[in-house]
Structure formats: C-alpha cells, structure tokens
C-alpha cells in the first residue's frame, strides 16, 4: 500500500503544487509555516477538496484524477482524519462518536458500540465511554478523535496538527502517547504540523512545504544539517545565507563575502550557528578570518540567552549570554564588531 499524490490546485491566493509519496508503516510529517497549504493538501487527500490537475492514488485505487474524470468522494475513501480541533460531535458521548463511522457504514448498533468500546479501551478511555466531549480533557478528546478515525479501519490516516489544541503542560505526554498509538496502526500515516518537535517525535520522514510547494524533504536530521530556506533555517535555529561559492570565498546575494573552510564552486548555502558569531566593542585581533563592523538592529531576550540581530552587510543573528551582553554594553542602533571563524561556516551547494 502506497500513497502517491501529485496535487495541483489553485484556491484563492494559494497555488498548490505538491508531489508526495508515503508507504504503509511510515509516518510522514508535512512541516511548514501557517498558510503554506498544508491543510488544503490534507483536504485534497481526504476527498474534501477536488484537485485541479494531477493524480492521487492509494495502492492501486485512483482517488482523484481530473484528466480521467475520476473522483472518489470522501465518504467512499478508505481515509480517516484527526482534525486540528478534533471536531468531535458535541451531542454524542465518546462511544457514539467512535461508533459514528461504523454506524454510517451500516454496522448494526450493538456491534458498532462493541467495537467502539474496544477502541476506547485500547486507547485507555474505557472509563470515559459515556462522557460527552465537553467533559473530556484536551488529551482525552484527541484520543477519542484518534479512536474515531481508526475504528473504520482506514488505509490512510491523516492527522492535522494533532497537538496544536493542547496546552504546553500536557503536550509532551500526549505526544508520547500518540507516538505509541500511531505505531500500532499499519497503514499510511501523514502528519501535518508547524512544530518541528512533533515532526521529530512522531515522523520517520519530513516534507517541508512552503507557499504551496515542497522545498525540502528527508529526515529531520538531514534537513537540519543542510537547511535550504530561511524558514527551515529559523526552524532549526540557524542563520542561513544563500549565495555563490568560488574557491573558499562565499559571496551573498547582496555582495558581502565570507571566507569559508571548504572549497567548492557554484550556487550554495552557508549555515552559521548563532553561537558561532562573536561580538566585540573594538576591532578584535587574532585568528578569525571573517571580521566586520556593523550595527545592532535589535535584541531578543530569552531566559539567560540573548539573540542579537545584526544589520547590513550580513543580517545574521548572534547568540550570547545575558552577562556577555552586559559586558559588551551595546544597545540597538550602536556600532559593533563581529567575527566568525571560517571553520564555523557550514557551506553546501544548492
């Protein structure tokens, strides 16, 4: 069983062009900023939004292919969804919510209830079967939503931001439980999230979607090592510069240059950890090959660390301790000297 989706869709200002495949037993995370088209992609896979062009197939069944006028409606697809805010039916208790899909498929009432109770027990909710969604905690609601989605035995399970509706205190434990429950389902699993922690904890593979297109795919570790967009750079907390490399000289799109360690030629990215950038009040001497003067654009404070955003010619972010900033005694708008060692700049061809 394999999902192969080539989605082409224009919807309002969104222009979606995404190619995606996922195998049974695999958890693929679609990671991207808000408005990138993640949820629209999910709606296309679920059959809630027909595509303009392309093809979606699951196993050997074509679910949507405008060219051949094929479209399988949502209610006939072997696809289940755990929605962002769960969308549990408020007028039904937990067991009837879980039994809903079975009842819709004409499973007799008693049998449907029995199966639903089994699912609830499997997810540790046997005691809450008679409770309405309003009486359940966020984590419990999520498990009911998961039970409801799994009870119909789908071949493809879609999860839309399954942890976004939870508060920070419960998210960690719910995330761990979700991983265990997901591991027991053997179909294709697609997880949509904007949180790299979710992707890291739950997914085998990550697909980065930005502005309706895939910008990067692979394991999260691989993506973190070689970010290829500003968004991914911010996601993994590193500075990312795009430019060209000639020998050991990296030139940014705006014409600033850096001396780097590795030798290469062509369009390239340079990733620089914020902690690798050193700041000084006066011109430093010693070994760093990259030293320049700039101004402080602004300063973000977080616990014991501060992030100093530098101005032109290299708009990088440096990280230092609160004590370090105090010793520096510089404020936004002030002039400052910055340096990076050539060996701290991670370059790779685009």
């Amino acid at each position: 069983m394999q999902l192969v989706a080539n989605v082409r869709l224009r919807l309002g200002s969104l222009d979606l062009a995404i190619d995606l495949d996922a195998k049974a037993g695999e958890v693929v995370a679609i990671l991207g900023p808000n408005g990138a088209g993640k949820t629209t992609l999910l709606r296309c896979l679920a059959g809630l939004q027909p595509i303009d062009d392309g093809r979606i197939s699951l196993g050997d069944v074509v679910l949507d292919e405008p060219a051949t006028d094929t479209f399988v409606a949502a209610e006939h697809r072997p696809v289940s969804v755990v929605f962002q805010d769960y969308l549990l039916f408020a007028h039904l208790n937990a067991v009837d919510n879980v039994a809903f899909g079975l009842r819709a498929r004409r499973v007799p009432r008693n049998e449907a209830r029995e199966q639903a109770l089994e699912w609830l027990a499997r997810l540790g909710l046997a005691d809450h079967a008679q409770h309405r969604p309003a009486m359940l905690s966020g984590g419990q609601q999520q498990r009911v939503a998961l039970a409801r989605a799994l009870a119909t035995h789908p071949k493809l399970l879609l999860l839309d931001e399954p942890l976004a509706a939870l508060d920070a205190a419960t998210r960690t434990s719910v995330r761990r439980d979700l991983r265990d429950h997901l591991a027991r389902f053997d179909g294709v699993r697609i997880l949509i999230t904007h949180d790299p922690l979710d992707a890291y904890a739950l997914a085998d593979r990550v697909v980065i979607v930005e502005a309706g297109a895939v910008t990067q795919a692979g394991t999260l570790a691989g993506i973190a090592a070689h970010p290829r967009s500003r968004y991914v750079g911010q996601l993994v907390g590193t500075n990312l510069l795009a430019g060209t490399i000639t020998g050991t000289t990296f030139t940014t799109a705006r014409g600033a240059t850096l001396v780097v360690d590795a030798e290469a030629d062509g369009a390239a990215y340079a990733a620089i950890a914020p902690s690798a950038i050193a700041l000084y009040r006066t011109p430093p001497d010693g070994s760093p090959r990259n030293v320049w003067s700039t101004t402080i654009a602004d300063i973000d404070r977080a616990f014991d660390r501060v992030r100093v955003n530098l101005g032109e010619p290299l708009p990088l972010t440096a990280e230092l301790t609160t004590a370090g900033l105090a010793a520096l005694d510089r404020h936004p708008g002030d002039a400052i000297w910055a340096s990076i060692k050539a060996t701290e700049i991670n370059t790779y061809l685009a």
Partner: protein
Amino acid sequence: MLAAMATTSKVPPKRRRGRRRSLPLPVLVLALVAISFFALPFVGLLWRAPWRDGWSLLRSSDALDALKLSIVCSLWSTAFSVVFGVPLAWLLARARFPGRSVVRALCTLSMVLPPVVGGVALFFALGRRGFAGQWLDRWFDIRLPFTTAGVVVAQTFVAMPFLVITVEGAIRQLDPRYEDAAHTLGASRWYAFRRVTLPAIRPALIAGAVLAWARALGEFGATITFAGNFPRTTQTLPLLTYLKLESNPPEAIITSLVLMAVSFAVLVALRERWLGGIVRPPAG
C-alpha cells in the same frame, strides 16, 4: 498552571449577590416600563373577565370547537413549516446560486406583509379561479379556500418564515467542518445532515418551530381572507374572538384568556427545554 486554568474554567463563575445593584438606573426604569407595557393588557383582561360564569360561557359557546380547530391547524402548519422550512433554510444558508438574496426576500416577505394582503394573494393564486387553484380544482379536485386545509395553508404562509430565518441563522453559524468530519467517517450527505447537522441546530429548530407555531396560533388576517369564518371548519379562536367582541364581549374576553393561557403555558414550558438542551461544544 495552564492545565489548572483549563479545568477550573469549566465551572461557571459564581455571581456575587451585590452584582445586580450595578445595573444603571435608567436601564432599570425603562426595562420596568417595558415589562408593564406587556403585563398591562393581561391585567386588563383579567380585570374585566366574567369569572363567575366563565366556565359555563366557555362550554355553551363555540369557543371549545374554535380552540380545538386552532390547535390542530397551528400544529399542522408548524409541521409543514418544519418539513419544508428546514430544507429551505439549508438551501439559503449553504447553496450558492444567483439571486439568492431575492429568493430569501421572497420567502420571508409574508413576515412583513399585512396578513390580509397575504390572504388576498393566496386567494388569487390558490382560489378556485386562481392562477394555480383552477388546476388543483380541475385535476385533483382540491379546493383550498373556505376549508380547514385552507386555514393550514394561510397559517403556514405567514408562519414558516419565522422558522426559516431562525434555522438559517443556526446553519450559517455551524462550522461546516463538522459535516466534513462526518463525510471522512463514511457518512453520506443525508446521514451527515440527520446525525450531525440536525442535532447541532436542534435548539434553533425548536425555537423556530415555537415562533412559527405561536404565529400560526394567533393568525387572523390571512385566515379570514383566504379561508373565511365558518364555525367548526375555518373559525379559529382569534376569528371567534373578533366576532364575539361585537355580539358578546364577555365571551370574547374568555376566548382571549384561553388563547393567552395556552400560548403562555407553551412558551414557558418550552423555554426551559430549549435553553436546557443546549450543550455548547468546547472552545478551541
């Protein structure tokens, strides 16, 4: 901290006793004026009511027949309003078609139209020589004017819009993603409508049905124009009341009180039910 806030927020906050005093005095005064404005007519009726021989007056007159007819007809027109009004509300809320606002205006016109005008219009449309009525008569042998069925038609004509606008508003407020969720679980459109949409709009449906029923029960103008005023077939309680006001005022007061008591009892009884039945989905 956040978890604690989430759990405590489910308990409704207790109101302090002294809170009510903070109501601004002008608001209070005007509200009291409004209440007495609604209460005074009741008091007027109760004051003039012939209490001593009320029951015998009621028994001897046509009032019980008229009451029976009123209740039966108003319940039928409520039923028709629900059966046709809910799909109409659905169409107005969800379907996108050109001229939707014109259709909506047309379907709620009878709410603002003087009922007599509605009755005249019905007569020229469904009367024996009417635009559509002549075919009903010729093909199906159906004659609506001056029949009990005509009363139901007239009442439905003026009452249904109350249900339509109430239910349409509720459907508009409903998050369509709940229906999406039902579809992904294998529910057909009809199954999702029955099991998800209808329960979600139930409070509005009940409220709309009560409004429509109350409007039908009190209907006068369209009924007397379209269905006439024949005892036992088309003479509803409002019609009888109007008639008796000329011939026998004490009886008119009695029939008015009966009408008022029935409406009041139903409104009070249902108000508990439709407010108590609402379980709001959790926010977020």
